[in-house]
């Protein structure tokens, strides 16, 4: 893989941050109803979002993939996103939209026994890179895909 694109997560720093945001961070399932990572959902940039989630810029990895995710959305209000991970011990999958006002759209915790594959729909204010961020065995990996947002016709 291209070395310049492949930034390995700085594990030490990541762990420190992780412990800092731990209470509001990636949650154990039983806590999920009460907790929501406010800092991560309010982050405005990719880097701030990675940090708030407890990491930094992740490595791009072919084992994280978009499925059933079109290159063009006919309407930005509903953009289908499917993400799969074939990385062992995948713990969570997050969707990040670089040019949205708040970058983080959703985080899914994948307990053992659940397939590391989710499908949902998000809003995009404009054409943007979309990141599939996977945490597996404490490390972060990502896939990126550009999705164009267009509007057909005029009026509704």
């Amino acid at each position: 893989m291209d070395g310049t694109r492949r930034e390995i997560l700085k594990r030490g720093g990541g762990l420190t941050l992780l412990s800092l945001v731990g209470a509001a961070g990636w949650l154990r399932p039983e806590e999920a109803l009460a907790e929501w990572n406010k800092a991560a959902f309010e982050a405005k940039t990719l880097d701030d979002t990675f940090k708030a989630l407890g990491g930094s810029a992740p490595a791009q990895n072919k084992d994280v993939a978009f499925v059933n995710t079109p290159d063009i959305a006919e309407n930005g209000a509903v953009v289908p996103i499917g993400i799969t991970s074939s990385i062992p011990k995948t713990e969570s999958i997050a969707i990040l939209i670089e040019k949205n006002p708040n970058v983080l759209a959703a985080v899914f915790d994948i307990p053992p026994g659940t397939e590391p594959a989710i499908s949902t729909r998000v809003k995009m204010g404009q054409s943007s890179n979309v990141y599939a961020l996977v945490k597996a065995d404490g490390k972060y990996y990502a896939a990126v895909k550009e999705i164009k947002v267009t509007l057909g016709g005029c009026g509704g």
Partner: protein
Amino acid sequence: MRSTTLTWICAIAAVAPAILFGCATAPTDAETSAKAAVVMKASFREQGQAKLDRLDQDDTQKTCSEYSGKTLPKDVAERIERANLATIKWPSDSKLVGDWKTGEKIAQEGRGMQYSDDPRGPVGANCYACHQLAPEELSYGTIGPSLYRYGKQRGYTDEMRKYVYGKIYNAEAYSACTNMPRFGHKGILTEKQITDVVALLMDPASPVNK
């Protein structure tokens, strides 16, 4: 309530008595047309800037509705074109070609004249809804012909400029029962706006002619 119903029945009676009293046989085409005009009036309500008078058809609208899906007789077409040609107001200072950049904005703008539009807001021509123009815009419609390289192919002559102005002002003057709105005649665009759209088609510097 009663008086409204009465007025309505009277309106039908006045326009097409056969509908009320001649139910035994199917109505003629003309009777159905007359009834349609009455039913339309009763089936809409004014909203925002769109008043009910928008349903009053002028001769062109009425005739073109009648001949939809049929061959338009030559004499009828000529009558429509002659009447519409007479409506065109040519620019007082004979300046037919305005600013293509403004013209491009007008061509992109889809708002204007809908009851949901702010009456003080922009009114566009929405040319791209139906025509290809500048090649950069891939989201164009195909109801009308492609106008890409319009001026370049036809020549930047005074005659052509005048024709394009007239066509945008009142397309019915050149092609009876065309789908194209009569932008000047119906007061959709101002004279100045029309010259800007002319520029989009007829200025050699316009992206349409690149």
